[in-house]
């Protein structure tokens, strides 16, 4: 991190909304599929076709706006953004210009150490997606050097939500944290699949730098062509470094669009020789305005699910769970739900989280069965945790019992009973075991008496093993100490 200059970053996201049909027509809104099969007069821009907005898409954007604390416009409209491009069926895009559905609000995100931060939103609006073009005839499939292009209009008309943030982000890491928080929230709301690899989440970054302590803004560049969160982080970092280098050597930043080159790890200027687009925005005369009542906004507010940021605060603040562990839970709603049920049964958060993210998650990976769908029900887990808390079994045994339970051997309590795994603290039972171990390992005993105190752990381990983990390690250690010091 440079000490003299700080990055100033804003993110612009396009999110494909999850609806059954497209924004302005009844064609299917589904990823993939045979090219040019999900088309109709409207989304193909045939002469005479007219758009009619999808009610569900509007519900989704209102939900998103409410979730982020934006102001939902009581009155909003659609405008035409006019420009020619082969993947634009009408050579204008229906979008929203000066009266978006949502304005303001913020996205709460958290960084590595768990601190919750906030990035303000400028606006959230609705528009339609374009078709997809593939460029043929060049060596790398990219547009430059291609001979011709092939267009598939399946995606044309898919509902798109554009989220524009204020330039509140101060590092590439923050930018990614912001995106992750945005993504988690949209997933929790069920409004989008938000998969960068499928194109349902796309983003551009606006990047500038300024002297630390300054409140004015430097010239910004727009970074495009970032295809994953990792790309976003690398691209922004690369651009920040580029700009700082220029500024420090007395140069000037050009306001331009730059494309991220994943392979070479740099941004390239995409400056075209044409002037900036004159989009000639005007209200779309084929559509009537949207009126979203305060009552509707209230209804949406009341039916919102708990949002990831709220859940994050609850887990970290109330349950004192570490941010990284919290993040893991939040990314897996089923797991989080499981965890909450275990808590509801009285288990302590620290215990519960360790088992859920530790042993159980490991078992899930090994067996390919999700924790929430395994034989270890929340009741069973909370039972095991209680057994450990009550010192009825050791934590080592708990691991074994859970594994057995997972693999279908029945309820934990029954397993403990059946296998005789109860914690053994009774000295009477343990003394013979200890003596047995000492007798079997005279060399180790000699080492200990010679001054190598750390072999004690080894001996404790042996006794534990011999007892199949049921021996109370504290008692074992005491007994060993006694025996060894008494000569």
């Amino acid at each position, binding site marked *: 991190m440079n000490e003299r200059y700080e990055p100033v970053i804003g993110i612009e996201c396009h999110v494909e909304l999850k*609806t*059954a*049909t497209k924004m302005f*027509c*009844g*064609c*299917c809104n589904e990823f993939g599929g*045979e*090219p*040019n*099969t*999900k*088309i*109709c*007069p409207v989304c*193909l821009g045939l002469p005479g076709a007219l758009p*009619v*907005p*999808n*009610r*569900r*898409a*509007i519900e989704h954007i209102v939900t998103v706006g409410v979730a982020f604390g934006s102001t939902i416009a009581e009155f909003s*409209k659609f405008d035409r953004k006019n420009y*020619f*491009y*082969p993947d634009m069926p009408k050579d204008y895009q229906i979008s929203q210009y000066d009266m978006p559905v949502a304005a303001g609000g913020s996205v709460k995100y958290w960084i590595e150490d768990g601190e919750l931060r906030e990035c303000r939103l400028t606006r959230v609006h609705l528009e339609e997606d374009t078709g997809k*073009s*593939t*460029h043929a*005839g060049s060596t790398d499939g990219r*547009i430059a050097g*291609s*001979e*011709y*292009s*092939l*267009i*598939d*209009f399946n995606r044309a008309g898919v509902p798109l939500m554009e989220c524009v943030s204020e330039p509140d982000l101060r590092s590439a890491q923050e930018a990614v944290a912001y995106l992750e928080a945005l993504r988690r929230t949209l997933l929790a709301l069920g409004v989008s699949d938000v998969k960068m690899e499928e194109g349902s989440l796309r983003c551009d970054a606006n990047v500038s730098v300024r002297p630390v302590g300054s409140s004015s803004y430097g010239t910004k560049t727009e970074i495009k062509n970032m295809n994953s969160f990792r790309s976003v982080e690398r691209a922004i970092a690369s651009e920040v470094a580029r700009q700082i280098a220029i500024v420090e050597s007395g140069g000037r930043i050009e306001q331009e669009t730059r494309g991220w080159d994943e392979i070479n790890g740099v941004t390239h200027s*995409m400056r*075209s*020789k*044409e002037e900036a687009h*004159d989009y*000639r925005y005007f*209200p779309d*005369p084929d*559509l*009537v*305005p*949207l*009126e979203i009542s305060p009552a509707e906004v209230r209804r949406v507010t009341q039916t919102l699910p708990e949002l990831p940021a709220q859940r994050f605060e609850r887990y970290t603040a109330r349950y004192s769970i570490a941010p990284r562990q919290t993040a893991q839970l939040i990314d897996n709603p089923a797991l989080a739900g499981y965890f909450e049920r275990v808590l509801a049964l009285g288990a302590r958060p620290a215990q519960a989280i360790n088992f859920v993210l530790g042993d159980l998650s490991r078992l899930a990976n090994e067996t390919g069965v999700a924790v929430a769908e395994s034989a270890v029900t929340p009741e069973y887990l909370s039972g095991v945790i209680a057994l450990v808390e009550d010192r009825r079994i050791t934590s080592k045994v708990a691991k074994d019992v859970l594994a057995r339970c997972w693999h279908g051997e029945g309820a934990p309590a029954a397993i403990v009973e059946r296998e005789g795994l109860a914690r053994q603290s009774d000295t009477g039972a343990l003394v013979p075991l200890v003596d047995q171990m000492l007798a079997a390992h005279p060399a180790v005993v000699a080492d200990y008496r010679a001054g190598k105190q750390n072999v004690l752990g080894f001996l404790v381990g042996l006794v534990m093993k011999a007892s199949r983990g049921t021996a109370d390690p504290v008692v074992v250690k005491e007994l060993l100490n006694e025996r060894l010091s008494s000569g």
Partner: protein
Amino acid sequence: MSDPIIDIRYVAKLAQIALTDEEIERFGAQLGDLLQHVAALERLDTERVAATAQVVESRNILRDDVARPSLDRETVLAQAPQRQGKFFRVPRIIGE
């Protein structure tokens, strides 16, 4: 607004229509003439007048999120000026 000279070249570029020099001159004159007539609108006092957004006063004319049949691809591609397999084909796209 009283300067009715239109940059026809710029406008034709936005509108993606190739014009000959002769057309640029002719249209320049004709549209300049039209704008002279249109300048009459400056005489109207529109200070406190709302622009007509729409003649109809409807709001929220929406459709339910229910699928409707799409067009048959062959029917559509059969009329494409140039197709390649299942795609529409266009000459190379330069820049953005």
